[in-house]
């Protein structure tokens, strides 16, 4: 009986554990796929509506052009034929509900109170601020309600005489997106519900094989994630391609309509008119995408216009022999098509009959161009996908770690926080805090400068002062925080810093006063500074306890992952939610981290800490604090004298640390956007190119962490980093130098431009890869120098971090002097010089060795320091 009860109890316990595991994995999967789904919807709303708007505007614009032509010929604005043409427009268009021609006097015939007015030149992100994302519509497939109105000015020979008013269909921007994402939602929901059950079942079969279980769980989790991403990408490509196709079709239709007038009036295009090629050229030039425009007569080419880059593709046969397979029978009947010497599959074709005549218009758009456009539209989603994948990975690792933590607690049979954890597990547990703690502040990177510019428009404070305030807050707190890290528990530091950061973000959401914002940014800098030091100390301690784990490397990875993800997601969120809500979201993430820290994180024992072993621990608390505070200035002086007499520390700082940080803020953050802007790139593309730097850093750092056993000593890695930085800069500068030397203008040729852009991108990637070799190893290096054994590795690292920050501060000013000439233009040739200088500094770092007097100085400092500790 008792045995049976025991078995039942065990079964029940197993069952409840399985259910808990399933639910927890469902929650994490829900969170990850939800994030991806959210990003997919947001990105679709960012891109598709502007394509639809362009389409509507193209259609409206072509009608406007036709009416303007008639007005210039002398027809009055009241001509009833214009209303008929407007009616034709809305009857033929899927997106337009109603269109009418208005004079200055007549009234709008339909109620327009609920319509929002749009202009055709509105940018994608501004449009997203106007559109309401219909979340419920995605889930419930309800009828969308939001409609828009566009008014185009009509002019005769002497000026404006009226307007063409276009009212879109209700839900014009959301209908297609909602339909697509409601399908994806069902797939995602099924995955979230079923994959954890599947994982649980498989794990049940593989009870003994822990490693297999983990691989299968991760594989299925990531597989499900990638599957949803692929479905989203596929649907997005279809959605975007449809819009792009529709744009070229509109042009073909307009050309056919224009040409059909001759037939209507009883004339023959070929017999009566010249200048048709000029018209075809004008149409081809109107859209950069179109490569060929043909005018056919019974299948024979009688006129063509080809873009210069596709001259070789122009048909030489002059006769279109076989019908296009992809045209409808009606179109096929109208357009006798050709089988030319080149593959017709290379082009997307719109073929339309010119009225009732034997003429046809054939417009070709290279698929390459279509794919290029789709790629440009989807590129952002890929970035966001990577960002969400990185974050999802953190979620999964956190789940796995928490499970291990609970399992550990069950084993040691005590409350979770009272049970010691291994360093590796501690690392896994702290990773989400590291990632989210930086991400909460990185969410506003993308829009903060522009947002502050609007708020500080009439203020006495400049926008740059806000950033200076942040960095001052950050730098000022570094050394005190470093000292605090030695004397108190790091967990406290973590949640206090997170609370400070979160409160500063909530404050940013609540105020628009420049002075308050300055104070809040100082606070944010302090919060992030303390957070950074607490994390660094925590990870260094983990590395100390388990030399197989590289703490600084994890810090670099965490910083870059969070910065890239935060900036990308923040840029997407801002138009959807507004600035205040993004700040609040950051604050909420901070509070979640605080809760997580309190519940999950455990302090590590800092066995080397001089304070913990100090005899003063026996004194009352207040006396201890007084004595501690009294000791600090003395300690600081002593530490500084030790640091700057240590050749190893000094050369690392001056040849590696300062230039690397100055290069980051001065070149990457300040000069590179200006330089890329001078190459006529848009802001979005500039951001995407700069992301390669972070990918480079992540790649080398992750590889370093993964294959630690094969890694070279930090000194070699640092040398490689310095040389790589030089190579990166030379790659960026060499093309510019050659072009400047031979005086080739920026606008010279697309291929040249692409080649140069590729070189710049590779240069930035190499720079990132090189910095990845420096960021983490340099901290490991300074914590391994002899001095670190005296004043403690965390303190040495903190001092190093602090002085390194001077490079951050001086970077922009130094870059301005080096790279900007008196006319305010960038001098890319200087990249070569700076690149070579960096390589020389790397070599100097490698070759200069501590000499006897410095060793002596260091030894003296060491002795003095030891005496102080004992006293």
């Amino acid at each position, binding site marked *: 009986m008792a045995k049976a009860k025991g078995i039942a109890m065990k079964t029940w316990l197993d069952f409840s554990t399985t259910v808990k595991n399933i639910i927890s994995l469902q929650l994490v999967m829900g969170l990850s796929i939800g994030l991806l789904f959210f990003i997919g919807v947001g990105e679709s709303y960012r891109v598709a509506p502007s394509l639809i708007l362009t389409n509507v505007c193209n259609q409206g614009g072509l009608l406007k052009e036709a009416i303007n032509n008639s007005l210039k*010929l*002398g*027809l*009055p604005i009241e001509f009833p034929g214009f209303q008929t043409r407007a009616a034709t427009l809305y009857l033929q268009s899927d997106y337009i509900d109603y269109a009418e021609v208005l004079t200055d006097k007549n009234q709008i015939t339909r109620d327009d109170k609920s319509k929002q007015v749009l202009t055709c030149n509105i940018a994608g992100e501004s449009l997203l601020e106007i559109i309401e994302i219909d979340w419920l519509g995605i889930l419930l497939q309800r009828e969308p309600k939001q409609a828009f109105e566009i008014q185009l000015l009509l002019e005769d*020979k002497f000026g404006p005489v009226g307007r063409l008013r276009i009212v879109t269909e209700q839900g014009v921007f959301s209908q297609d997106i909602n339909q697509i994402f409601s399908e994806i939602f069902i797939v995602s929901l099924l995955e979230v519900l079923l994959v954890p059950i599947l994982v649980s079942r498989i794990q049940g079969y593989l009870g003994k094989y822990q490693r297999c279980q983990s691989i299968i769980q991760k594989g299925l989790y990531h597989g499900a994630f990638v599957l949803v991403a692929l479905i989203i990408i596929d649907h997005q490509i279809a959605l975007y391609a449809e819009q792009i196709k529709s744009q070229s079709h509109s042009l073909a239709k307009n050309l056919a309509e224009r040409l059909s007038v001759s037939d*209507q009036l009883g*004339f023959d295009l070929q*017999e009566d008119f010249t*200048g048709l090629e000029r018209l075809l050229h004008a149409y081809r030039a109107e859209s950069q995408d179109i490569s060929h425009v043909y005018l056919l007569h019974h299948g024979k080419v009688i006129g063509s216009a080809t873009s210069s880059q596709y001259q070789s593709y122009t048909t030489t046969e002059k006769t279109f022999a076989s019908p296009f397979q992809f045209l409808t029978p009606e179109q096929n009947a109208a357009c006798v098509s050709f089988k030319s010497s080149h593959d017709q599959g290379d082009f997307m074709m719109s073929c339309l009959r010119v009225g009732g005549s034997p003429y046809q218009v054939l417009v070709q758009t290279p698929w390459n161009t279509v794919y290029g456009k789709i790629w440009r539209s989807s590129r952002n989603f890929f970035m966001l996908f990577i960002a969400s994948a990185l974050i999802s990975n953190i979620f999964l690792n956190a789940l796995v770690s928490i499970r291990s933590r609970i399992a550990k607690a069950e084993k040691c049979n005590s409350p979770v926080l009272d049970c010691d954890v291994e360093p590796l597990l501690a690392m896994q547990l702290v990773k989400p805090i590291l990632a989210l703690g930086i991400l909460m502040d990185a969410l506003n990177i993308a829009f903060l400068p522009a947002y502050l510019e609007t708020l500080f428009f009439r203020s006495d404070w400049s926008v740059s002062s806000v950033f200076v305030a942040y960095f001052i807050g950050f730098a000022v707190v570094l050394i005190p925080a470093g000292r605090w890290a030695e004397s108190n528990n790091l967990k406290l530091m973590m949640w206090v810093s997170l609370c400070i950061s979160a409160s500063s973000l909530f404050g940013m959401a609540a105020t628009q006063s420049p002075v308050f914002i300055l104070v809040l940014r100082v606070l944010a800098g302090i919060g992030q500074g303390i957070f950074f030091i607490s994390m660094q100390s925590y990870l260094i301690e983990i590395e100390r306890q388990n030399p197989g784990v590289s703490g600084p490397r994890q810090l670099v990875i965490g910083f870059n992952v969070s910065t890239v993800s935060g900036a990308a997601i923040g840029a997407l969120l801002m138009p959807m939610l507004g600035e205040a809500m993004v700040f609040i979201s950051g604050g909420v993430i901070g509070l979640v981290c605080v809760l997580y820290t309190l519940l999950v994180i455990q302090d590590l024992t800092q066995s080397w800490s001089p304070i913990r072993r100090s005899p003063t621990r026996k004194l009352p608390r207040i006396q201890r604090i007084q004595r501690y505070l009294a000791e600090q200035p003395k300690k600081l002086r002593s530490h500084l004298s030790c640091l700057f007499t240590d050749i190893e520390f000094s050369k690392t700082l001056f040849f590696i640390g300062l230039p690397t940080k100055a290069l980051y803020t001065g070149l990457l953050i300040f000069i590179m956007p200006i330089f890329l802007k001078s190459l006529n790139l848009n802001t979005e593309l500039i951001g995407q190119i700069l992301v390669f730097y972070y990918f480079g850093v992540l790649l080398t750092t992750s590889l370093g962490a993964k294959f630690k056993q094969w890694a070279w000593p930090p000194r070699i890695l640092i040398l490689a980093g310095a040389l790589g930085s030089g190579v990166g800069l030379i790659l960026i500068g060499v093309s510019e130098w050659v072009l400047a030397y031979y005086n080739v203008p920026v606008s010279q040729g697309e291929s040249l431009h692409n080649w140069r852009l590729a070189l710049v991108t590779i240069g930035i990637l190499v720079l990132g890869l090189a910095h990845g070799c420096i960021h983490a190893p340099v901290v490991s290096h300074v914590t391994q120098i002899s001095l670190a054994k005296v004043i403690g590795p965390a303190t040495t690292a903190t001092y190093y971090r602090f002085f390194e920050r001077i490079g951050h501060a001086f970077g922009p000013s130094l870059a301005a002097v080096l790279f900007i000439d008196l006319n305010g233009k960038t001098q890319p040739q200087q990249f070569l010089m700076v690149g070579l200088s960096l390589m020389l500094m790397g070599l100097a770092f490698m070759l200069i060795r501590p000499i006897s007097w410095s060793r002596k100085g260091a030894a003296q400092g060491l002795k003095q320091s030891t005496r102080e500790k004992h006293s």
Partner: protein
Amino acid sequence: MSRYFYLLCLILPCCAAANVNVIDVTFCERIQNALSLLESENSVQRVDSSYTCEVAPRSWLFGLRPDDAFSMPIIIKPKALLNKRKASSENVKPVLLLSPKWSDAYDEASATIIDQFTNKGLLREYILFNYQGQESQADNMIKQAERSGVELIFSVGSAVTEYMTQTYSDGSIPVVTACSKDPYSIGQVDPAIGMSQNNIAYTSLNISVETQVSYLKEQFLYHLKKIVVIYDQANTSSIITQVKPLENYLKNDEFGIELDKIKVDLTRVEETLYQPMERVVDLSKDSGDTVFLITGSTELFNLIGYVNYFAGHVPILSVTPSHVNEGDKSVFVSIGVSFRTNAKLAADYGARIIQGLAKTETLPVGVVSMPDISINFLRKPSYQLKVPFSFFEDSSFIYNYHGEAVRRNGATVVR
């Protein structure tokens, strides 16, 4: 008997209005016909566009003989203005349209100005007066206009514009010219300044020579070598405004086009027109290397049938849109400014002055930059000669190979 009745009516204003259509039916009818034509050609029915027409009040008649129906000034009022007055007591100043002689072109221009004002929501009373070459009457009218607080004067026609330039260029009422020849060519405005700097804002019935030649050479006849201009030696204004500017321009022009002139003595057309034309045709190798350009002279245009005959394969062009007509009494293509377009420009200038958006002193001479094109395919001289598609699209009037209108005033003619 009737003459006394009219006189009585003028003395008793209360009955004058009632009988206005009987007294001055001709002038009113002309203008109302022109207004109706505008509406019908454009297929537009404006709710507020109906007008009343009556003889002007007595104060405007100063010594005119009431039995001379043609010489009576008339007053045209939009009905919408009458309704508006009922609603409010707002006092609207009248606008004077002064013309020198009877002309369908002037009627069309006057009607267009009135129509454009109404279309722009500027409801005004219009006093129209044709002084029939009697400048003293014009002078009286202007003085009365000053007394009555007239807001704006339109001088419709070259003669009245010349008169206003000589006598009223320092006047108190702003003047806008319409249907008048190029003020630069006839010395009314200094081309170097480009504006009158007085109370008269000028518009030009001619397009600039640069535009003319560029339309011909750059868009139409790419191999053009010679322009042969045909003009009436007695028509001084056409020589000043059309022949001389073209001659001066082609002297320094970069296109390498030769100018040949056929000076026509209408009493000896055989020797001065037909024979020179035959010589030109003989020298022309293809249909696009030479063109005849006929100037705007009514007497000369009356010979268009013969001119077409002797032109052979050489196309005949004009800068006067009215030279392209239905049937075969037409030139092939005209590139110029129609009376209606010019009147629209004048109305636009007038509206801007009334609204306080512009001043006559600083308004540049109004030249239509996009000319009106008319084509008669029946007069296409040879099969090889083709029309630029852009001309076809920009043509206000198109006549097909049978000489029938297929587009009129920009609208397709439905058959």
